[in-house]
């Protein structure tokens, strides 16, 4: 299955998540790209593959927080698009300084993850040093243009960053998801919230971020739909909700108290890029399933399995009038609360407030 064609006059948001990991890409008219985080399967890095498919170069790249499931392929994208003259380099966003997980060889899975993160951070910091204008500080409240759209940093607040950094320096405990960067993409008064992994608990991240986020046409659901990340601010307005799974934590959860049930209390459908299981056990064709079916499904196999890139994505296309259309890749699942056919629809969410 090929990736969908892009419309010159629409804003497109891709959300990829192949079981573990997350990549969000925004193409704003006329043809400007933002790449947020990264994921991959084996040696296939989804970010570089996506841009290669559309023959695109990113204007903006951001790593929202230093976790492996968001850092895969970020160094490659940074490296790929900083080969030429510095005037062609993208702006690269990262909170700095940033705490990182401390790893050692006794836990090889964590060691591998730590190396991938270190690679991404090194690539970004190196480009900042070599060409300071490429630095995008992700200062909360700041905005930057992406073609006709603008990108506003909605989280984390400075004091939260400072506290996390101090805790890390002291060797104390902290949750890196408290300082995950949330971006608000605004185009023609329509907003898309890219929730990264920001959690409400601990730290009340969404309560703090709420005033900075407009009611959205769509939200990339934070932290794989965990209950810790749930907050009315990103559900309000009944937007399109796209979720990426995190297999090792079995997120999102499909039980009646889990994140998906809570979301389905507000929206008709939640769009999941893939099931919270290993990539090799993903589904070869887009599925429509109820939450209860998924709850019962467990590890049961569904044939045929995915056959490789491009897969495990949801693509949202928004027209200037706010109408939205969704495309679903192999591996993805549209989840409803009750049975019955999901009606494809175009819904207009009226913009509120004045930011554009």
């Amino acid at each position, binding site marked *: 299955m090929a990736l969908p064609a892009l419309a010159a006059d629409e804003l497109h948001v891709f959300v990829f998540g192949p079981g*573990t990991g997350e990549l969000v890409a925004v193409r704003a008219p006329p043809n400007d790209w933002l790449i947020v985080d990264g994921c991959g399967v*084996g*040696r296939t890095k989804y970010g570089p593959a996506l841009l290669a498919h559309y023959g695109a170069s990113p204007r903006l790249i951001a790593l929202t927080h230093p976790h492996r499931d968001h850092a895969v392929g970020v*160094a*490659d994208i*940074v*490296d*790929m698009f900083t*080969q030429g003259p510095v005037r062609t380099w993208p702006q690269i966003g990262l909170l700095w300084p940033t705490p990182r997980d401390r790893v050692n*060889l*006794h*836990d*090889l*899975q*964590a*060691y*591998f*993850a730590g*190396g*991938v993160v*270190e*690679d*991404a*951070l*090194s*690539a*970004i*910091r*190196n480009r900042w*040093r*070599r060409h300071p204008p490429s630095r995008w500080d992700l200062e909360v409240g700041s905005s930057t243009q992406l073609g006709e759209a603008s990108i506003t940093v909605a989280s984390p607040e400075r004091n939260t960053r400072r506290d996390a950094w101090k805790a890390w320096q002291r060797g104390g405990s902290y949750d890196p998801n408290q300082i995950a960067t949330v971006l608000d993409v605004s185009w023609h008064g329509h907003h898309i919230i890219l929730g990264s992994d920001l959690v409400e608990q601990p730290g009340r991240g969404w309560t703090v971020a709420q005033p900075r986020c407009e009611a959205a046409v769509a939200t990339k659901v934070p932290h794989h739909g965990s209950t810790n990340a749930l907050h009315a601010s990103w559900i309000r307005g009944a937007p399109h909700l796209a979720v990426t799974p995190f*297999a*090792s*934590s*079995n997120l999102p959860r499909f039980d009646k108290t889990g994140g998906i049930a809570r979301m389905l209390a507000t929206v008709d459908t939640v769009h999941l890029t893939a099931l919270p299981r*290993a990539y*090799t056990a993903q589904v070869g064709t887009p599925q429509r399933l109820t939450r209860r079916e998924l709850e019962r499904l467990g*590890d049961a196999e569904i044939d045929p399995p995915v056959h490789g890139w491009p897969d495990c994505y949801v693509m949202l296309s928004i027209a200037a009038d706010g109408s939205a259309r969704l495309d679903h890749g192999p591996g993805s699942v549209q989840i409803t609360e009750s049975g019955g056919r999901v009606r494809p629809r175009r819904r207009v969410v009226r913009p509120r407030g004045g930011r554009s």
Partner: protein
Amino acid sequence: MTAPLALTGLEQAAGAVREHLDRGQRRVTLYGRASSGKTSAMRLIAGQLEAGGWGVHRTQMTGDDDGALVALAMLGADLGDDVRGCLFDLNVPWKRKLQSVVGGLGRTGGRTAVLVDDPWFGSPEEAPSLFAERATDLLDEIERTPSLSLVLSRSDRPLAGTVVELPTAAEPHAVLAAERWQRSSLAHVARQLAEAGDARLARLSPVELRLAVALASVKGMNAAGALQRLRTGPHAFVRTVLDSLGNARFRTAIVRLGVMRTPFDEATLDELLGETTASERGLVLDALLFKTDDGFVVPELLARVAKERLYTLRFAELKEAHFVAARFHERGFAEQARPASVSRAADLRAVKRHEMEIIHHLTEAGDAAAVFSRSVDFVEQYDKLGKTLSIRGVRTSKRALLQRAVDAYDRALVHDTDDPYAHHYRAYNLDVLADDPAPVEEGYRRALILRPDHVWHHGRFVAFLVTCGRPREAHDAWEEALRALDGLRGHAWLFRELHRPVARLLLHRGRLEFAREVLDDVPERLGDTWFAPARVLLAQLEEAEADQLVFPASVPPDSRWEGPHLLIAKGERARVVRWMPGRIERANGEISVRFAEHAAKFGRRKFNAAGFRRVCPTARPTMPPAGTFLEIIELEGEDHEVIRCHPMSTALNDLPALFPHPDRYL
């Protein structure tokens, strides 16, 4: 105690060398083990050659990084003003100095022999350093000059060429003769040893015989007991003797003598020995050192062992020993440098030798300011200072020392802008300091342009690019390294210096495809001890990348599914209904276990702490940490599965260390 002229066969060996030269041999090696009298033999050879009408030039390498510089300076000091003007001009590069000196030697007319004591080539086990290359350059240049013949004295046996072997033993009765020990408190021990008539005595060199006297005296042994200790070979014997020398204070004093590379005076001896008793001092004078016309000499055999142990000294103590040595040479320099003296070539040699020794000792003392304040003759002396400071800075994690090393290389580059060593190591020290990658890259690149054939230049540049998150350029640089160094693939050090650090860094960064490419390029027989654990880590990380890491490295891949591996009792094995390998992937309140039912089916299980402890008795009282490998086993007759944990694997213990640390620029 006078020099050991009790060696038999020296005259004969000297004659054999002379005959080879007379017959037209251009290179002859005099081989004899440490302290077998090579220097004495070289003196005899020089005398015989001069008597036969040969022009003779003698020099010596020091066995340290400045070996070739000292040797060249001593040769050049004999020559005319034009040669000396070039040789002692800091701004003249090594090659021109070398050509000038060797050209000067070649122009002296008639048959000319150059005698080099203890030529030093570095270790064949290691990539050639700048300093070893300088030594090779010197000997090559001499050999290339048709009018020159070369005589080398070595204590490591050359594998080819014309070799004259020195006799290995002394005349024991001459060494132990009463008249040699008549003023010594050890006379009775020497007599006992001589009277023992042990056949082994005839196999020993004079130095070994004297050390046997020393050992017998401090341990109160009889001759047989002392000789028994010689079974392990001369070097081990010297270590035994050193270890037997009374107390730590005295042993350390002997080690301090290892800083001296030339004969020295009594005042220096006293300063180096520090507080010693009369009997200890007597032992040193009578049994450990030689007294020659030029002063006290530490025999080669003892000097080597003492030098090995210099690094056991506290740095302040080592530094002070080198300052003592520097002060000795300062006095010698002041004495020799009087205008009336330096008119003679021999005195100029002495002046230059003192000057170079002062620089050497100030360098080893780490006193960069003192070196900078003096005039030096060779850019390589700044390179050596940089190396010394850098090694010490890395060992002690002192940034100030690394910065001073950079200063030393800056000095070198002022006088030779094309010094690849200085460019490379300036960059390397800046790389360790990690303040700014720009000059690091510039230095590495410049060194590669100047010397694309050097393994360290490639290895560190590739590693730098990987460290900075520049994998594409790193891969290009890697391919270029393989092309440039293709002719060195027979050496294990190529893989150790190039593949090992690059692979280790790539594994750390999770760049597994590139890491595999690097490791696949290593021939297994040349992989050394680092290779196997690096491959194990690659295999483990590849499974981690695929989220399929369930077996520890201690379970061989071929027998993975022949488990369970953690059952001990045979009876248990017979009751196994099912088993699954797994790993604790998270243990923060909830315990998450990744497991495999078979090679293609993986799953996860979650336990709370109590539930996990119920099935895993070893989790009481301490919960195993994330990363622990385990087996989930279902046994017949049991109402629940059991979990058993693997012990921590040692398969990765020999992994090479990561240095400089890859996150240094973050």
